[in-house]
């Protein structure tokens, strides 16, 4: 109960201390006088009475202490005393304080950095109201009923019409659109969305409105950033025309700034522009990703049951619908994707570092505790209770943790933006960090404070408890205390696990970068051109454009050769399609389809294994020819030579009708005229698939990548190349201009990020563990100085002394290494999804790391051991 009187009295006792003390003295003196007078009345003399009264009272100071301890202010005072005393002790042992604080700073700071990553990844992934009711819907297909990302438009519309459990459903697709106009042509990343999409999310535009079902196709909604950047925050933008893909579109609305929508979780640019989805009636053509908002009061299970019922009914009515069922995922979880897995892994790794730093400080305190034995004895003798001393020691630990934490936060402040910068782009982790704006926020600060308190308990309790135990005999103290040795073993084990993890990641990265991609990557400049639909509406126009561009580029003096291809290698893009093998043994197959320029393989440096390359002669008027890769040859013609054979390929044709865009696959006969070597199409870590290459004159594409082999470092050439391309069509944007080396680096970026962080943690851990081993060995040496003196005086040789010291720690080190190996065996499987071509239990990595750890431990023990032998035996003998 909070009594005002008590508070006031306590404050008075604190701030009017002298007066309160005087009053206490007065009262006690009066008591003594009264007692003495009373005794005199019963016959004692004055001196006897006074003495008797004093004896009855006992120690006046004890009584006063008893009175003082009643108030709450006395607890406050003791805490304050503890703090001052603690600060004084820490200032006295500056070296110890510095080492301990720095060690803790590394542990607490590192954990704060990773925690901020985790916080950013998990923090409110969706800025929409009641976002826990938003779900992504996945059609389940195939024998194993696996979820696929997209549904067919027709299915989606039926789901929309028939559902009662969802308040609304919406569909979206990723699109890239050319924006032209007064300024430079720009390629925008955006999404095509169905009417009511933003209402489903719970977002209203700040200007204008969103799409309705009666809107034409030529409308657009802008993101807030685009509106600011490109249209100068023009308030009259609604109803104004903009030029997308050569068509004129009317701006219907502008979205609020907090909307950062991505067409998929790892898409690095946020969608800047939104257009309506073009309906496609074919039920087997998957084009839209579906999300929906649950109706109020409906549970997920009810919705699942209803939607699966709807899907089953649709499958019966329309056999070509491929959805056998529907699965849900909360939209927030979908957006976070695998970023949280990475963040938790890193948190686990840095927790090890924190544990090592805490046990280092615990060891330091244990050593210090032994040195303060005298102080503890004196304090106990003057009457301090064990609890009081413990409280004071724990206060010291908290001060230590506090200073370590403060330095740690400073480190984190510097390190967090750095980590944000090296995050791999095109990953869900990067998207999350961008959206959440990774920085040192209050949550991280609060967490660090909590962590400091927790660590102070972790490293402080044990040494404090040990320090307040009655003094042990010197014999017991000279043994390398079980506690110290155990902590050292723990450190060795933890740092071993981290080092193994880092070693595996490094080996994996090296293996990945050693992969033979199948073509020459140096001095190769790549760029993407997406022709606008309206301007280049026919295949002839499309082919003509690329003809002209290639001609111009090849004519540039710095360019050795130029080519073009759909789906550039190592860009994680592939368009695969089916084909048929006619003849006596008919067959079917799938391959990646690529339209390429003549001489493409020469430009890329892909070796030709058989037959010929595609030439200028293979034009629209000659029979369809193609080149296949070795994988395709081996898979579909294992026992024969595919040269000269004909296959039936299917051409994707999109027809715009009144019902929507009709999609068809028209068959063509194609003769195989050459076989080339395999390349890595999807990525460094994906094995080659069957690929088919067709001349783009015969198979024009609207969107292709240009590749230029140049004589020297490509980057400086970029503006000149752009200018040449714009000479053909100044309104046609050129995007994604990168060197092939950059694409390769991007491939490795994800693993490199993890390697950098785990590597940093492993290095810190190894250094801290080494310091810990050094500390324990030093301490052990000092304890046995006297003994060493005796041995040396009796004629022991230097090596024997060194071996004596080393042997002391050896058993603990061995235990530590064994525990580390066992721990690494158990834990590295968590890394399995990040490793490439390396098993989590890779023997050579384990062996190497164990040797490294042994070497570090040996060195760390050796240095104090050698110092021990340098001691003058006479000095050592006198050492107590």
């Amino acid at each position: 109960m909070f009594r005002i009187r008590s508070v006031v009295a306590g404050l008075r006792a604190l701030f009017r201390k002298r007066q309160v003390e005087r009053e206490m003295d007065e009262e006690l003196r009066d008591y003594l006088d009264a007692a003495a007078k009373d005794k005199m009345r019963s016959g004692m003399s004055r001196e006897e009475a006074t003495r008797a009264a004093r004896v009855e009272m006992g120690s006046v100071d004890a009584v006063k202490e008893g009175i003082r301890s009643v108030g709450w202010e006395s607890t406050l005072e003791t805490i304050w005393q503890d703090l001052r005393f603690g600060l004084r002790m820490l200032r006295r042992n500056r070296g110890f304080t510095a080492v301990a604080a720095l060690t803790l700073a590394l542990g607490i700071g590192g954990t704060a950095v990773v925690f901020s990553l985790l916080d950013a990844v998990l923090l409110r992934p969706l800025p929409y109201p009641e976002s826990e009711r938003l779900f992504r819907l996945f059609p389940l297909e195939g024998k194993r009923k696996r979820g696929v990302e997209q549904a067919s438009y027709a299915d989606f519309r039926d789901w929309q019409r028939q559902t009662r459990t969802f308040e609304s459903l919406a569909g979206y697709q990723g699109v890239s659109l050319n924006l032209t106009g007064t300024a430079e042509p720009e390629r925008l990343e955006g999404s095509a969305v169905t009417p009511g999409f933003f209402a489903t999310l719970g977002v209203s535009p700040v200007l204008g409105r969103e799409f309705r079902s009666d809107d034409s196709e030529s409308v657009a909604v802008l993101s807030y950033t685009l509106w600011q950047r490109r249209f100068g925050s023009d308030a009259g933008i609604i109803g104004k025309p903009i030029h997308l893909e050569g068509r004129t579109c009317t701006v219907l609305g502008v979205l609020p700034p907090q909307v950062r929508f991505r067409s998929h979780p790892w898409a690095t640019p946020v969608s800047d522009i939104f257009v309506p989805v073009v309906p496609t009636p074919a039920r087997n053509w998957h084009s839209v990703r579906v999300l929906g908002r649950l109706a109020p009061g409906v549970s997920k299970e009810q919705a699942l049951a209803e939607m699966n019922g709807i899907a089953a009914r649709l499958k019966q009515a329309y056999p070509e619908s491929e959805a056998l069922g529907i699965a849900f995922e909360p939209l927030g979880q979908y957006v976070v994707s695998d970023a949280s897995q990475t963040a938790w892994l890193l948190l686990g790794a840095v927790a090890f570092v924190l544990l090592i730093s805490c046990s280092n400080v615990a060891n330091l305190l244990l050593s210090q505790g032994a040195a303060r034995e005298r102080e503890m004895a004196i304090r106990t003798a003057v009457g301090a209770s064990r609890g009081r001393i413990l409280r004071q020691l724990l206060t010291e630990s908290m001060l230590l943790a506090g200073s370590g934490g403060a330095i740690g936060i400073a480190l984190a402040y510097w390190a967090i933006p750095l980590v944000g910068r090296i995050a791999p782009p095109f990953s869900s982790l990067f998207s999350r960090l961008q959206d959440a704006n990774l920085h040192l926020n209050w949550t991280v600060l609060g967490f660090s404070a909590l962590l400091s308190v927790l660590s102070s308990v972790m490293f402080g309790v044990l040494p404090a408890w040990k320090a307040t135990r009655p003094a042990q005999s010197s014999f017991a103290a000279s043994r390398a205390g079980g506690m110290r040795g155990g902590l050292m073993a723990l450190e060795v084990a933890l740092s071993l696990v981290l080092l193994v993890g880092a070693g595996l990641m490094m080996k994996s990265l090296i293996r990945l970068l050693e992969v033979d991609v199948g073509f020459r990557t140096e001095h190769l400049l790549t760029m993407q051109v997406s022709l606008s639909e309206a301007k280049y509406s026919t295949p002839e126009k499309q082919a003509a454009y690329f003809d002209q561009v290639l001609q111009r580029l090849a004519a540039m003096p710095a360019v050795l050769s130029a080519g073009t291809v759909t789906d550039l290698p190592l860009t994680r893009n592939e368009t695969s399609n089916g084909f048929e093998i006619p003849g006596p043994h008919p067959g079917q197959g799938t391959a990646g389809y690529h339209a390429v320029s003549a001489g493409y393989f020469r430009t890329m440096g892909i070796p030709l294994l058989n037959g010929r390359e595609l030439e200028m002669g293979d034009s629209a008027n000659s029979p369809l020819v193609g080149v296949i890769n070795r994988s395709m040859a081996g898979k579909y013609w294992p026992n024969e030579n595919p040269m000269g054979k004909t296959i039936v390929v299917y051409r994707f044709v999109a027809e715009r009708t009144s019902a929507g865009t009709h999609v068809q696959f028209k068959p063509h006969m194609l003769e195989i005229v050459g076989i080339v070597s395999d390349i890595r199409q999807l990525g460094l870590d994906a094995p080659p698939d069957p690929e088919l290459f067709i001349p783009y004159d015969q198979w024009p594409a609207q969107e292709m990548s240009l590749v230029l082999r140049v004589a020297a470092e490509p980057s400086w050439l970029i503006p000149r190349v752009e200018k040449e391309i714009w000479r053909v069509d100044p309104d046609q944007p050129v995007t994604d201009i990168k060197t092939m080396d950059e694409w390769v680096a991007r491939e490795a970026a994800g693993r490199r990020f993890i390697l950098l962080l785990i590597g940093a943690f492993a290095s810190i851990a190894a250094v801290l563990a080494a310091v810990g081993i050094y500390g324990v060995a030093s301490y052990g040496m000092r304890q046995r100085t006297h003994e060493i003196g005796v041995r040396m005086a009796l004629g022991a040789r230097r090596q024997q002394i060194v071996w004596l010291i080393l042997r002391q720690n050896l058993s603990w080190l061995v235990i530590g290494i064994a525990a580390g190996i066992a721990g690494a065996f158990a834990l590295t499987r968590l890394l399995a999804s990040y490793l490439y071509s390396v098993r989590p239990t890779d023997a050579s990595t384990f062996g190497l790391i164990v040797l490294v750890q042994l070497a570090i431990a040996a060195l760390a023990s050796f240095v104090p051991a050698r110092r021990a032998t340098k001691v003058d035996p006479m000095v050592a003998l006198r050492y107590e």
Partner: protein
Amino acid sequence: MKSSELIQGTLDMLILKTLALEPLHGYGIALRIEQISKGVFRVNPGSLFPAFRRLERAGWIKPEWRPTENNRRAKFYQLTTLGRKQLKAETEEWERQLAAITRIMRAPAISDL
């Protein structure tokens, strides 16, 4: 005769009761308790004075400095209204407990029958 130990709560109650009649100073309270209990309870200052501060903080007694002879002053304690209420409540509780204990102690044992 050894003075019996008084539990903290009971001491508080006795002090309140002692002050119910008239305000007293420290020694006076100790003397009164000793006298009325016929020497069974002899409270030492080490327990007494912390109790005073406790009761003071709780608002049950109120200190008053009164002048004495020799131009000095003595600290007298007085029962407050709150204190009176507390005394009444504690007395009732004590009597209840006492009656119960007495009943148990006086109850015949099974073997007695």
